[in-house]
C-alpha cells in the first residue's frame, strides 16, 4: 500500500511505539501518587514536558498535555475567550480553519460573542490589511491556523502576530497541527503566537495525544474540571505513555525536519509539474507558496470519490479534501472560500506526504494516475 494520506493521520514511528509500550509496562503508576513509583513517573513526565518546552522556546509550566488537536484547539478558544470577557467579547478567525476551531467559535457566537471570519484569496491566504482593519480594542482572541489541512496554504503568522500585538490586547492562537515539523513554529517574544496547538498523530506519534503550549502564563479557564492535573488546566489522570510518546515523536520530527522537508519540496514541485501536464482537465488548489507536504487538486467534472476508488484499486491511498469532512456530501468550506470553479468543486483530491514515503512511490503514483485519467477521462498525459 502506498499511503499518501498523512494529513489525516500518520503511521507511528517504531521508536515511539516502543516508548509507548515500555512506559505502559514499567512506568504505569499515577504521576500524582506520592509513593516512589508515582514520583518516578512524575519525574519522567516532567522530563517530557521540559523536552516539549525546549522545542517551542517556552517554560515547562506552559506545556499542557491533551488528548489531541481538537481538545487543544477547544481549550485555547473557550479557555481564553471565557477568561477574558471583562476585556471584550470579540474574536477573529478565518474562513478556512479546522472544524475544531470553527465549531468552537460558532458555539461562542451563541453565547453572545461577536466573531469576524477573515476571507482568503484564491491561494488560501488571508490579507494582513484586512486583519489590521478588524482588530479592535475589545478583541480577546485571534485564532489563525498556520498551514491549512485541505490545500496546504500557509498564513503569515509572524506578521499577523505583530499586527495583533501592536493593535490589541488579544491572545493570538495558532493551530499548528498541520505545520509542526514542516515549517518552523515557535514563540518569539511578543511577535508571533501566544498559544500553539499540536497533535501527536500527525507527526508519526499516537492518536489520543497532543499539546497546547503557551508563550507565558495566561489567564485561561479549563474545560475539564477535577483533580487539578496539568496546572489545573486539564484535570484527569495524565495519560503518561501518550505524553512521553508525544515528546519523543516531537523530538524525532524536529530532528528530521530539514532532511524530510527537502524531500517534500522535491515531490511537490515534481507533481505540480506532472499535473500541469494534463492541461485544463486538472485544476491545482495548492500553490508553490503553500506547504510542500500537501498537494491538493481537482479533476474536471469528476467526483473525488470515484478517483479515490480507482487509485485504491491500484494500491494508492489518497483522500478527498479532508478526512474529517470527507464523509459529508457538501462542498468543503475551504473549497468554497477559495472560490473554486463549479466544474472543479466535486473532484478535489489531496495527497499528503509523510516521513515513510519514498521517491519510488511518487513515480508509481504518476504512472498509475496517468492510467486512471486515461480510463476515466480519455485524456493522455502530455
Amino acid at each position, binding site marked *: 500500500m502506498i499511503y499518501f494520506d498523512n494529513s489525516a493521520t500518520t503511521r507511528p514511528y517504531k521508536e515511539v511505539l516502543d516508548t509507548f509500550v515500555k512506559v505502559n509496562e514499567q512506568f504505569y503508576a499515577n504521576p500524582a501518587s*506520592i*509513593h*516512589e513509583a508515582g*514520583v518516578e513517573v512524575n*519525574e519522567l513526565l516532567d522530563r517530557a514536558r521540559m*523536552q516539549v518546552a525546549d522545542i517551542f522556546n517556552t517554560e515547562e509550566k506552559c506545556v499542557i498535555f491533551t488528548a489531541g488537536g481538537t481538545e487543544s484547539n477547544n481549550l485555547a478558544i473557550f479557555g481564553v475567550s471565557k477568561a477574558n470577557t471583562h476585556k471584550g467579547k470579540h474574536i477573529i478567525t478565518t474562513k478556512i480553519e479546522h472544524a475544531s476551531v470553527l465549531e468552537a467559535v460558532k458555539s461562542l457566537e451563541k453565547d453572545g460573542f461577536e466573531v469576524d471570519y477573515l476571507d482568503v484569496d484564491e491561494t488560501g491566504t488571508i490579507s494582513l490589511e484586512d486583519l489590521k482593519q478588524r482588530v479592535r480594542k475589545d478583541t480577546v482572541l485571534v485564532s489563525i491556523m498556520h498551514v491549512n489541512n485541505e490545500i496546504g496554504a500557509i498564513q503569515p503568522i509572524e506578521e499577523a502576530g505583530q499586527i495583533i500585538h501592536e493593535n490589541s490586547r488579544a491572545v493570538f492562537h495558532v493551530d499548528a497541527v498541520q505545520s509542526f515539523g514542516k515549517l518552523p513554529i515557535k514563540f518569539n517574544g511578543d511577535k508571533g503566537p501566544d498559544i500553539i496547538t499540536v497533535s501527536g498523530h500527525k507527526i508519526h506519534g499516537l492518536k489520543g495525544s497532543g499539546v497546547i503550549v503557551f508563550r507565558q502564563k495566561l489567564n485561561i479557564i479549563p474545560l475539564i474540571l477535577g483533580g487539578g492535573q496539568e496546572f489545573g488546566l486539564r484535570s484527569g489522570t495524565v495519560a503518561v505513555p501518550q505524553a*512521553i510518546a508525544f515528546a*519523543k515523536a516531537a523530538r524525532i520530527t524536529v530532528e528530521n525536519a530539514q532532511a524530510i522537508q527537502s524531500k517534500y519540496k522535491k515531490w511537490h514541485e515534481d507533481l505540480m509539474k506532472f499535473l500541469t501536464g494534463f492541461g485544463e482537465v486538472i485544476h491545482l488548489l495548492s500553490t508553490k507558496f503553500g506547504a510542500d507536504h500537501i498537494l491538493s487538486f481537482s479533476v474536471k467534472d469528476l467526483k473525488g470519490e470515484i478517483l479515490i476508488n480507482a487509485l485504491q484499486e491500484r494500491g494508492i491511498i489518497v483522500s478527498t479534501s479532508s478526512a474529517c469532512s470527507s464523509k459529508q456530501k457538501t462542498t468543503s468550506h475551504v473549497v468554497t472560500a477559495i472560490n473554486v470553479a463549479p466544474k472543479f468543486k466535486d473532484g478535489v483530491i489531496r495527497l499528503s506526504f509523510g516521513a515513510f514515503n519514498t521517491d519510488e512511490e511518487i513515480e508509481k503514483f504518476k504512472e498509475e494516475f496517468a492510467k486512471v485519467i486515461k480510463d476515466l477521462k480519455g485524456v493522455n498525459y502530455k
Partner: protein
Amino acid sequence: MKWKEVLIRYGELSTKGRNRKEFINRLRDNIRYTFNEIAPLKIHTERDRMHIQIENNEQMDIIMEKLPKVFGIQSFSPVAICEKNMDAMKSLAIEIMNDFKDQDITFKVEVRRSDKSFPHESHEIQREIGGTVLSNYQNLTVKVKKPDVELRIEVRKDAIYMMAQVIQGAGGMPVGSNGKSLLMLSGGIDSPVAGYMMMKRGVRLEAIHFFSPPYTSQNSLEKVKVLANELSKFGYKIRMHVIPFTDIQVLIKDRVPENMLMTTTRRMMMKIADRVREEIDALGIVTGESLGQVASQTLESLTAINDVTTTPILRPLIGYDKLEIIDIAEKIGTYETSIQPFEDCCTIFTPANPKTKPKVDKVKYYESFTDFDDLIDKAVKNRELYIFPMTKPREDKFEGLL
C-alpha cells in the same frame, strides 16, 4: 568586543588586617572550585583586587553566570581591551557604554596612563572619549563628582583596558575563612536558608539529617539531598551525615509523656549532632530556628534543648519573620524544593499539645528512666555519608524513552 579579564573587588575581607592574605587565598581557591569546569583559570591577586584572565567568550559566559554567587566579592567588572590608538578606543567606549543606553545617568571618564610613552595625554583622552560617548548617547550627562557610571580607561604597555559596568557580588566572606560548623538540615524552608547565611559569613558547612524510615519516605531524603546540593553551589563542597533515627524516636515515644515528646526528640537530635560535630572537628552547630515560630522554638524550648551541650549553637534566623525567610529561600533557589510535601522527622510523632514552656528539670526527670546512650552510639556509628555537589551523574533510568 574583546574581553580580557574580570576585575574583582573584595568584600569585607579588605578590613581584616593580618589575615588578609589568608582570606584572599581562600577566595581564590573558592573561585577555582566554582569554575572547575573551565579550569585552569589564570587568577592574579593583588592587595585589594583580583583579576581573572578571560581566554574566550564561553569562559566569560560561565563566569558571568556563577560569579554573583561566590561569597567574599563586593563587586566585579568585565574588562575589555583594544589596540592603542584613538579610533579603537572610541569604538570600544561606544560599545561598552551601550549597556546603559536605556537609562538616564551621569558619567565621567577616568584615565590612568601607566604607559607614559603613549602619545595622547590623560586630559586629551578624557576629552576625546567623553565627547564621543556623549554624542552617541543622548541619555548621558557628564558629572565629575560621584557619577552613576565611571568609564575607566587604563593605558598599559600591552593594550588599552576599559570597563564601566560594576556588577554586585554576593558580599560576605569567602566560605571557609570562618571555620567549620555542622548544619541541622531538616528539609523545610528554614534550615537551608540558615546554612546559606552562615556560608555567607565564611563558615564552611557539613550537614546532618535525621532519617526515620518508614515514618519518613525515601522522597524526603532525596529532597534533603537536593537541598544540600543546592547549598554546595555557594562556594564549597558539603558533606551530609544521615542519621538512622527511627529506633530512638520510637523509644522516646514509648518512654516520655506525650507533651514532652518534641522537647526530648530535639534534645536527642542535638546530642547526636554534637557527637558528630566533635568527630568532624567542627566548632558550632547551625540551626534554622526562628524565635516563636513553633512550639520547639520558644525561648523556653530553646533553653531546654540547648541544655544538652555547651557547643555554640548558631541561629542566624532567630530574629527573622517567616516571610523574610521565604524571600531568601526563593532568592537562593531552595524554596521550591523545600515546599514539596513529604513527611519529615519533625512533622511525624508530633503531639497534639506540645509544651511550649518545657522545664529543663522536668524533661531531665522523664528522660532519666531510660538509657538512650546505646542507641545514640549506634545511630552515630551507623550514619551514612553523602558528598555534594554530586559528582557522578546518576544513571538515567529513562534512557531511550524520550
